[in-house]
């Protein structure tokens, strides 16, 4: 008998991983939550059948969503993390001792609970004393915050399920108000390759560009995400993503598997088709 996990990445493309064991399966009320164990990618979490995080390649995503913004401003003290129930983003943030507070807002408690149970590699520090966990809608949480955070990280699902509100103008605009004058917003920015993801990418970029003074996009290579080519958004009220602080990042003495200062500069260099696609105006 063979057991395979298959993600329908597009209508005509499927991605499969051979499964050792199906460890968890339940509907949380928000979404279908599953955890599998595999030879190739170790244990991994899916939401509504879509790949979220694997033990083998999670370092790429979490390095890039955390170290890029942290390197651009050494004065980041208070961070808001939205989504990120697997805990990997918080784990990387806690490696900066100067960071004082992390508010983490995850809509679905079940994601945190199963991560703590099955994915300690990412989730082990979710209950650190610097972390305040809130189980509510990120859109609601950010609505009442003004001039409070140095950094907001939006580590969301795709904009089809419960994550839809985190790709809207009202969300980005409320994030802008929640950020201090030197504030930075980094978000999971979908992918440039398959058309459905490309539309989400353009829409997010256009909306963020309308609100933030600086709005750029950077890339990483994530084997288990559709097309493997994934993007992040970097937006701020003024701090540029490539600045003098990037080179002194190594003084933190952090050992990383993916991120390094040269890659930081390089990841903002995008393929021509992506640059052109981002320039194209989005219409609903």
């Amino acid at each position: 008998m063979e057991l395979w996990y298959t993600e329908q990445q597009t209508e005509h493309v499927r991605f499969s991983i051979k499964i050792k064991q199906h460890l968890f399966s339940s509907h949380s009320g928000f979404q279908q939550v599953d955890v599998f164990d595999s030879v190739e990618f170790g244990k991994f979490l899916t939401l509504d059948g879509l790949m979220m995080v694997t033990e083998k390649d999670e370092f790429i995503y979490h390095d890039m969503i955390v170290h890029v913004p942290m390197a651009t401003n050494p004065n980041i003290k208070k961070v808001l993390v939205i989504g990120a129930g697997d805990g990997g983003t918080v784990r990387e943030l806690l490696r900066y001792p100067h960071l004082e507070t992390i508010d983490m807002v995850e809509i679905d408690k079940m994601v945190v609970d199963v991560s703590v149970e099955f994915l300690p590699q990412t989730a082990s520090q979710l209950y650190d004393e610097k972390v305040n966990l809130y189980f509510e809608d990120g859109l609601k949480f950010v609505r009442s915050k003004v001039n409070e955070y140095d950094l907001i990280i939006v580590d969301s699902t795709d904009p089809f399920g419960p994550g839809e509100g985190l790709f809207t103008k009202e969300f980005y605009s409320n994030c802008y108000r929640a950020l201090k004058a030197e504030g930075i917003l980094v978000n999971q920015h979908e992918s440039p390759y398959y058309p459905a993801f490309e539309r989400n990418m353009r829409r997010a970029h256009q909306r963020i560009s309308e609100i933030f003074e600086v709005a750029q996009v950077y890339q990483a290579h994530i084997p288990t995400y559709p097309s493997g080519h994934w993007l992040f958004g970097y937006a701020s009220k003024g701090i540029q993503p490539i600045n003098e602080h990037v080179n002194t990042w190594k003084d933190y003495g952090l050992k990383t598997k993916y991120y390094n200062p040269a890659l930081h500069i390089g990841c903002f260099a995008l393929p021509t088709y992506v640059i052109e696609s981002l320039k194209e105006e989005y219409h609903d």
Partner: protein
Amino acid sequence: MSKTPLLDGLKRYAKKRVVAFDVPGHKQGKGDKTLIDVFGAQSIQYDFNSSFHLDNLGNPSGIIHEAHQLAAKAFNAKHAFFMVNGTSMAVMVMILASLKEGESIIMPRNVHKSALNALILGGAHPIYVNPQMDKQLGISCAMDADDVINTIQENPHAKAVFINNPTYYGLVTDLQKIVDVAHHYGMKVLVDEAHGAHFSFHEDLPVSAMDANADMSSVSLHKTGGSLTQSSLLLCNESMDYHHVLQTINLLQTTSPSYLLMASLDVARAKLQDEGHEMFTKIMELSNYARHEINAMGGYIAFGPDRIGQLGIFGFDHTKLSIHTQGIGLSGKKVYDILRDEYGIQLEFGDVSNVLAIISVGDRSLEIERLLAALQDIKERYAQEGHSQSIQEFIQPQVQLSPKQAYSRESEMVDFSQSYGRISAEMIMAYPPGIPILSYGEVITQAILDYISFGLSNDQFLMGSHDPTFTTLKVVKED
């Protein structure tokens, strides 16, 4: 699980694989697949015409009759009739079935157009009651029950009382009190319950027309009850003669009613019976939560049960979410437009001072949070200094001819300034707040001419006139 005889009958019929040499000509999509591609095989498969097995809406005795009986029971009525021409037709049937030509009916001045159309068809005389105006919110409220009762006592010859309950904004009058007095005077009570299809299914909602023992009620099941657009219910109590009502329906309704619309009424009724209570509990929670959060933002007023007890307001439909926007210096229309254009959020409507969101079974807290985040953002980004709101009073109409008489006489266009004292042959509405300024058969007074001039110079929408520039008005030709 409640029964759905009409849906079950359709399923059985489809399974028989009857060779169709009857209409509809698309033959369930066999020849041309376009309809199936667009609407899906299941829906096209059920698009049949009346036949032996499928009963006949014009004279129901089979599965439609069964479905009618179940609907009547669910809504605590003696009889229920499926309507496929919308609630507008149900309203017309109520009036035509209750009044003969020349008889009088008491109705609110801001009555729905369909009621006035029924007067044109049937020849009844309107006696208008002005609803109360909430000047702070800039909206017309329900009729004050005491005003209706005074009108009943002043016009004991009237045959019926027509009531809009609830209003679009979810405000209700003291229906029970009106029914008791009207019945004492031998008058029928007809309720336009278009926005109250859900009232029968939750004890925290206002009393339904049938529960208050009104004689007839028109219920837009498609608005808040979950059936397809254009499908509706007409409900009657035992005071109405079944055959007379059916005959009146058949004057107006199509002889080729859509089984998709009818089956959707059957299914929606069963769903309301089985899960309505739970659904409306959740909807009220969502709506009350949104009201609380919006009021906490400041600037906006999401009005609710706090208004009960004033201006004739007897109760409030907690599922409704109306938001007064003048406090952030923007008209409701402006907020409505910004929500649509900037945030991709479509509300039910926006008027001078308010927007209205319909919260229904289709909504989750995720969508509510989007609306709240967008309203907060609009306040931060667009709020401006005070915005004037001009809210007009109702003008007491002088009804000279019945609408039918005015409609059927010869008419002519006369100069605006020459129209004073003539009888109107058109209906002019002012939006907002949806007040008719002039209707068929009413004398054109100086107050009306002044109102139109004021409205034109204040960018108010004046609708329904034959000449949109108001250089001329359409009046009944004098002999």
